């Protein structure tokens, strides 16, 4: 029941926020913030409550679930379930959600109510994706994220927002439809073999498929997840969407939406189609490795600060693909860790870029420089997160990438070597970012206010959590571990 509340709170708060904006804008902001914080508190509560089971491992069942009949005619259930993986990603969702609302406290002044409606509904969609174990419900939530995100980019974005929004929408919608076809094929094939119509994840895990149909159906899922992730040749929507979106949009896109793709791969692709996934793994991993290098090189070449950060996402998510398709505990732990830390560090970079843009009205690196002298706190935070992004030991990103490389090296040493070149390349773009924006002489004569307490609080929280993840990753790894073993047993069942 508590799982449904997580979604309902967001949906309801969205409507309240939209209506209340007529009378009080401040109230709208507070309601939205309160809703996300409430959800965050609930997730933390769940985490604490299940702390024993989370670390105990072994148990393959869900930590928490709820199951309502929704459309019985087609065997569709409103079935939500939580395991360690969902728990971690939900915590990230509400953490970043609350921070992105805080970050747009002063940035958004036009139709504030509608803005918060969209933000909260995107978060609701993402929550649904992370919790759904009925494939119809999953697809429903998957599509639900799209429209509000589209509005967020198209209405509050920057110069080329319409172009970016439509591109984002088309890419994700087309790939989503391919996934729908795949889901339905699986549904009917399951019916053929068992005589039962169901979208239930755990039932579908047992579907016996011929190798050929498994491959095709897997490709349908893969299309949707690869576009969202985004994997190398499907990434072209990402730089546009990230660059043009308002700060909250960029944070949610980079921090959360991309993670839904990675989550889908972990939750669905490998457990549902272990054979096909193993066959396909070299291709996916090669694309991931190419993405790591390609993203890093392109990030280095950007002059637009937001675009630079956007391309780093392509690079970092390449590690996640590498980790997922290696499918051993080490690599997957790394992939999950990377997902969490990339969400925080990239989110923070977007928030800083947004704060900077609010002050100097440009994102061009060429027009910045020498900001350290006048805004030391902002610049210091920039350096901190740039270092996190390049994988400085002691911060969370390092743990994630290190574990992925370690896990990948076992079976695919060549790919691991290529990927570690990507880590090196990250140094170049991260340091270039810092150098161009903050160091050097203040040749443009900027004089801007430093971070205000609200921003310090946001940045401080993010910096603190990255440090915590970097120094003490064990709780996260422990939480994910039983979930991994459950997934692993699903995979082995097929063999």
């Amino acid at each position, binding site marked *: 029941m508590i799982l449904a509340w997580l979604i309902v709170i967001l949906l309801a708060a969205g409507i309240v926020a939209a209506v209340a904006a007529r009378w009080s804008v401040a109230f709208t902001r507070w309601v939205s913030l309160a809703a996300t914080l409430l959800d965050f508190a609930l997730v933390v509560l769940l985490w604490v409550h299940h702390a024993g089971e989370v670390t105990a491992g072994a148990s393959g069942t869900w930590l928490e679930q709820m199951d309502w009949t929704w*459309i019985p005619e087609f065997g569709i259930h409103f079935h939500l379930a939580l395991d360690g993986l969902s728990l971690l990603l939900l915590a990230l969702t509400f953490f970043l959600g609350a921070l992105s609302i805080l970050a747009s406290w002063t940035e958004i002044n036009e139709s504030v109510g509608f803005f918060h409606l969209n933000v909260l509904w995107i978060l609701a969609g993402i929550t649904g994706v992370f919790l759904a174990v009925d494939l119809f419900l999953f697809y429903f939530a998957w599509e639900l994220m799209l429209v509000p995100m*589209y*509005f967020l980019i*198209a209405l509050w974005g920057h110069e080329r927002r319409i172009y970016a929004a439509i591109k984002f929408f088309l890419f994700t919608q*087309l790939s989503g439809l*391919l996934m729908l076809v795949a889901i*339905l094929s699986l549904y*009917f094939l399951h019916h053929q073999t068992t005589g039962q119509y169901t979208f239930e994840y755990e039932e579908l895990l047992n579907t016996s498929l011929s190798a050929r149909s498994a491959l095709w159906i897997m490709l349908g899922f893969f299309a949707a997840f690869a576009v969202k992730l985004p994997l190398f040749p499907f990434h072209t929507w990402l730089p546009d969407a990230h660059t043009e979106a308002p700060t909250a949009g960029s944070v949610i896109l980079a921090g959360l939406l991309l993670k839904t793709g990675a989550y889908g791969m972990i939750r669905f692709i490998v457990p549902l189609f272990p054979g096909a996934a193993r066959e396909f793994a070299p291709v996916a991993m090669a694309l991931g490795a190419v993405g790591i290098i390609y993203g890093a090189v392109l990030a280095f070449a950007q002059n637009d600060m937001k675009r630079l950060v956007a391309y780093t996402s392509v690079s970092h998510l390449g590690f996640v693909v590498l980790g997922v398709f290696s499918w051993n505990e080490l690599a997957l732990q790394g992939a999950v860790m990377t997902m969490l830390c990339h969400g925080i560090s990239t989110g923070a970079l977007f928030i800083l870029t947004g704060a900077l843009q609010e002050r100097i009205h440009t994102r061009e690196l060429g027009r910045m420089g020498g900001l350290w002298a006048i805004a030391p706190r902002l610049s210091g935070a920039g350096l901190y997160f740039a270092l996190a992004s390049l994988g400085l030991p002691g911060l969370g990103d390092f743990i994630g990438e290190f574990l992925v490389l370690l896990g990948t090296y076992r079976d695919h040493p060549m790919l691991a070597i290529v990927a570690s070149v990507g880590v090196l390349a990250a140094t170049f773009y991260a340091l270039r970012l810092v150098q161009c924006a903050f160091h050097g002489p203040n040749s443009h004569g900027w004089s801007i206010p430093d971070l205000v307490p609200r921003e310090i609080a946001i940045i401080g929280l993010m910096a603190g959590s990255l440090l915590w993840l970097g120094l003490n990753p064990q709780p996260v790894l422990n939480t994910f571990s039983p979930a991994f073993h459950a997934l692993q047993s699903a995979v082995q069942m097929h063999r």
Partner: protein
Amino acid sequence: MRSKAPFKCIGDSMMLQDLVALLPLVVIAATSIVVMLSIAIRRSHNLAAAVTVLGLCGAFASLFVAESSAPHKVTPLLLIDSTALFYTGLILAGCIAVTFLCYGYFKRQESSRPEELYVLIAIAALGSATLVSAIHFASLFLGLEILSVALYGLVSYERDLKVSVEAGVKYLVLAAASASFLLFGMALAYFELGTMEFGKIPGAAARPDVQPVVLAVGGVLILVGIGFKLALVPFHMWTPDVYEGAPAPVTAFVATVSKGAMFALLLRYVDQSGALNSSAVLLVFSIIAVASMFAGNLLALLQSNVKRILAYSSIAHLGYLIVAFEAGGDMARFAVAFYLVAYFATMLGAFGVVTILSTPGNDIGDLASYRGLFWRRPVIAGVFTVMLLSLAGMPLTAGFIGKFYVVAAGASALLWVLVFSLVITSAIGLFYYLRIIVALYSHQEGPVAASPRSRQEGSFSFAWTVGVLTVAVIAIGCYPSPVLRLIQNMITGSG
């Protein structure tokens, strides 16, 4: 050739039970006469509209009376079974919505003498209800002509307006031509088969002395007639002009009731005559479906008039329906019935919005007039957004579930070419729906500030109609089970 006179038995077998079964048709016919007489006695817009709505509601209520005797064959011409009753109900609901829209629309300009419009609507409803109960070529043609003749009048109802008359004449010429094709086709079929009852066609066609060529020519000609009414490619040429020229509420009628009735007839015809067992027929329908999906969606991209965009969009939607229809069996009946319900609610809602913004003689079609509508009239823009998203098949709207079932039907019958055409074209379709949505929320004002913000008489009818339709679209999208159960009953009832 057998020479059984098909009408011989009409006179003596009209029993009470026949009348009970025919009650809905009788009530609709009576409505048209009562409205006509009431106009002759006292010309009052309010009275005419009220009588029409009451009559149509009465007809709707009489469906439940008729249900008691269903399935019942009244003469060889009509079969009143649960399918016929279901579609009659859908048609009546559509007609009631159109009546309300017409009332509000013509209330703004009483000079155009709107009373007779309601007579025509009732007659058109009668024709449509006949079509969905027809199991005989004679009743097919009868229903079609009753519907068409009423439509000629409706389309060119604003006789002082050039575009309206032009649209009416165009419709008249093309519809008459296609009707003669249909008639010739039926004659050829009768010539070969010696029967005009759908149910006897398979038996008759199996006889050895049947010449397949003549039969094929007859079938093609019949298809021309039906395809014209459904505006399937390549018989779609009239659609955009008629949609643009006809008064907005009449366009809503043409787009929904007339097409829905025809599709229900097509489904029954194919069901009973077993036409889908022939691979040639399947191929022809596949070509038509693919052509309609591509042409509809691609040509819509080039339009800048909302009414024309919706015209092409409806062509594409009929193409989607053919995909479901080709799946055959109960799956097809299910998907088609559900899709039509969703399509009715959505299209009526979309044209309802156009109607609200328009006045007689000045239909607001130009996309530029919709620019920035959200900032002037947020509720209407919001409703329009819901309708457009439903047409695009986004979650939380009826269109999503509809599209889901169409893809499900296609996938269950392994019609991969059709399914992938649907996926690709509906992604293309997003482009123009998004274009309208972008315009609605754009910050620049359009050159023409559309429409009086009416607090006039009659605007309550808009508010109610569009309000109910919006609630229906969202409710069906979130919880489709009641509608599904209704359809389930319909299928088992007539199975």
